[in-house]
C-alpha cells in the first residue's frame, strides 16, 4: 500500500477522474490500489475480480475502475446472475451498459454478488452465499444488488452498476449508506442484462455521492437499436450543482407514517431530511397516491409472471447446468431446473406460472396490469402539483442475516416504498439520510419520466446539507 493510497481511497470517482486527467494520478496506480482491495474482499461482495487492467478508451470516466452486478453479460467473463444454473457460464457477447461505460474509459474491475436472478432484497438468495453489510457484518446489505452496494460502501471499488426491478438498486444503497439511482424505464439498454422482469428491470449506478451517480448514469444512458424498449434521453445528463431547493415542491404520500413495518428511527431520519429540505427552501405537503399501497400486490404478480417466462430458457439444452434424467426429456428439464434454481426463484416461477395459467390470467395478471395503470395515473396527477414525490427508501435499516428468510411475505414488504416507481416506469434516487441505531437510512426522491437531471440536482442540494459521512466503513 503506497503512502498515497489513503487519500486516493478518499477520492470519489469524479475526483479520481479529475486527478488522472490532470496527470497527478496514473490509471495504473488507481487500478493496482483498488484491485488489491477487491482481491482482499471479506464481504463476499465480488464473484470475480479481473486479473490485468483491460484496455479502455480515454473518455470522461478515464481510468476509474467499476464493478458490475453478476447478471451483466461480459464476453468471456463469468456472468451467472448469482445462480447455480449458470455457474461458470461465460457469454460470447457483452451487455450494452458495460460496453458504453468501458467506451467512456472505465475499466471493469470485477463482477459483484447478487440475489439469484435479481430476486430478493437481502442478497441471501445468492447461490454463492450472502454478502455482508460493511456497517455491521452480522447484517444484510440489502438486495438484489447487494454485492455492488457493499463493494462501493466498503471502498472495494470507486463505483458500480446494478439493476432495479422493485428496488434492487435503491434499497441496498439505503442499507449501506450510498447513492443508488433507478433511471426512467428505457433510459438504459437492457441488451445483455440477464432478465428478471422485462417491463420493470432497469440498470443504474451505485456510487458514493450524487455527482458520481450523474457521471456514471450519463455514460450508461442512450438509445440502443438492440433493445426495442430503449429510448434516447431527451436531455444531456449534467453534473448536479443546485445549492438550494427554492421553489421545489415535495409531495409526501399520506401513508408513509402508517406503512407496515416502518421503524421509528427511519421515520425520524425521514422527517429530519424533510426539515432539512424546507430549510433549503422546499415546500413540503402530503400528496395522495391511493393505489401505491397496492404496488406490492401488483408487483408480485407481474414480476413473477414475466420471470416464469424469462427463466424458461434455462433448460439444460444450450448452456449452463444439465442434470440428465435417464427417463427422457421432461425428467431432464425438471431435474435440471430443480437443482439449478434456488428456493426463492422456484417460488416466484411457481407464483408467476400460476398467475398466467388458464382461468387465472384475468384474475391476477390482467388485474395487476390495471392496478399498474392506476399507479401511473396517481403519479401523473401528483406531478401536476409536486416536482417530486419523496419517501423513506426502506421501511427499516439493515436487518440481521437470516431474520426474514423463513417469511417470504415480510421479505417482500421491504420493497413497499420502492415498488411503485418501476410499475410507473419513472426514475427515483436514494441518498443516505443519516443513521438510525448506527445504521444508514435512505431518502428516496422520485420524479416524472426523464426528470433525472432535476432529481440529481435536488438530491445534490440535500446531500450537501445532510453531509452524511460513510468513510468510517472504508477504513
Amino acid at each position: 500500500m503506497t503512502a498515497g493510497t489513503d487519500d486516493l481511497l478518499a477520492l470519489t470517482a469524479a475526483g479520481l477522474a479529475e486527478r488522472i486527467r490532470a496527470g497527478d494520478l496514473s490509471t495504473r496506480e488507481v487500478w493496482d490500489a483498488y484491485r488489491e482491495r477487491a482481491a482482499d474482499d471479506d464481504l463476499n461482495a465480488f464473484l470475480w475480480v479481473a486479473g490485468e487492467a483491460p484496455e479502455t478508451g480515454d473518455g470522461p470516466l478515464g481510468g476509474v475502475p467499476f464493478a458490475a452486478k453478476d447478471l451483466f453479460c461480459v464476453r468471456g467473463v463469468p456472468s451467472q446472475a448469482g445462480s447455480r444454473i449458470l455457474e461458470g457460464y461465460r457469454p460470447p457477447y457483452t451487455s450494452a451498459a458495460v460496453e458504453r461505460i468501458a467506451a467512456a474509459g472505465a475499466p471493469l474491475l470485477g463482477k459483484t454478488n447478487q440475489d439469484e436472478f435479481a430476486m430478493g432484497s437481502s442478497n441471501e438468495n445468492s447461490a454463492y452465499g450472502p454478502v455482508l453489510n460493511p456497517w455491521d457484518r452480522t447484517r444484510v446489505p440489502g438486495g438484489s444488488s447487494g454485492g455492488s452496494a457493499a463493494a462501493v460502501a466498503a471502498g472495494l471499488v470507486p463505483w458500480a452498476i446494478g439493476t432495479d426491478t422493485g428496488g434492487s438498486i435503491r434499497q441496498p444503497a439505503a442499507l449501506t449508506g450510498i447513492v443508488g439511482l433507478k433511471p426512467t424505464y428505457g433510459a438504459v439498454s437492457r441488451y445483455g442484462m440477464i432478465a428478471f422482469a422485462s417491463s420493470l428491470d432497469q440498470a443504474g449506478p451505485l456510487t458514493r455521492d450524487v455527482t458520481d451517480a450523474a457521471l456514471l448514469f450519463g455514460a450508461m444512458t442512450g438509445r440502443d437499436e438492440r433493445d426495442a424498449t430503449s429510448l434516447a434521453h431527451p436531455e444531456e445528463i449534467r453534473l448536479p450543482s443546485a445549492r438550494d431547493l427554492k421553489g421545489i415542491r415535495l409531495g409526501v404520500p399520506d401513508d408513509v407514517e402508517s406503512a407496515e413495518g416502518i421503524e421509528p428511527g427511519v421515520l425520524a431520519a425521514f422527517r429530519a431530511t424533510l426539515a432539512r429540505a424546507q430549510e433549503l427552501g422546499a415546500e413540503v405537503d402530503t400528496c395522495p397516491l391511493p393505489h401505491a399501497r397496492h404496488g406490492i400486490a401488483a408487483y408480485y404478480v407481474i414480476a413473477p409472471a414475466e420471470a416464469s417466462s424469462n427463466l424458461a430458457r434455462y433448460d439444460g439444452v444450450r448452456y449452463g447446468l444439465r442434470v440428465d434424467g435417464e427417463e427422457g426429456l421432461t425428467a431432464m428439464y425438471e431435474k435440471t431446473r430443480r437443482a439449478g434454481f434456488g428456493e426463492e426463484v422456484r417460488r416466484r416461477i411457481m407464483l408467476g406460472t400460476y398467475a398466467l395459467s388458464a382461468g387465472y390470467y384475468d384474475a391476477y395478471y390482467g388485474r395487476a396490469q390495471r392496478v399498474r395503470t392506476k399507479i401511473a395515473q396517481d403519479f401523473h396527477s401528483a406531478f401536476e402539483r409536486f416536482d417530486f414525490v419523496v419517501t423513506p427508501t426502506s421501511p427499516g435499516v439493515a436487518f440481521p442475516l437470516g431474520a426474514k428468510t423463513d417469511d417470504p411475505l415480510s421479505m417482500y414488504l421491504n420493497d413497499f416504498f420502492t415498488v411503485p416507481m418501476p410499475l410507473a416506469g419513472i426514475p427515483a434516487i436514494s441518498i443516505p439520510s443519516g443513521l438510525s441505531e448506527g445504521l444508514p437510512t435512505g431518502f428516496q426522491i422520485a420524479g416524472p419520466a426523464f426528470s433525472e437531471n432535476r432529481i440529481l440536482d435536488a438530491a445534490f442540494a440535500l446531500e450537501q446539507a445532510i453531509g452524511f459521512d460513510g468513510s468510517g466503513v472504508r477504513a
Partner: protein
Amino acid sequence: MIDRAEVLHVARLARLELSGDEVDRMAGELSAVLDHIEKISELDLEGVEPTSHVVEVADALRPDEPRPSLSQEEALASAPAVADGGFEVPSPGA
C-alpha cells in the same frame, strides 16, 4: 387458497420437480402471498386499461440487414452435449 393438486399442475407447467414436503410448503407459502395479492381484487378497476407496455414509442423496427452470426464453435461453446454440429438432447418422444 392453492392446494396440492394445483401446485403439482403448476410445477409440471413450469418443469420444476418438487419433492413431497416441498409441495406442502409451496402450497402454504404461495397461498400466503396470494392472500396478500387478493387485495387488488377488491379494487374497482372497471374500464381501466391494462398497461401492457410502459413504453409506447412508435415501432422500434429493425431494417432487414444481416448482422454477423456466431461461428458454430462459438454457438456450441457452452453446450452441455454436442452431436453432429448440434445440441444433443433426450428425444421429446422418449
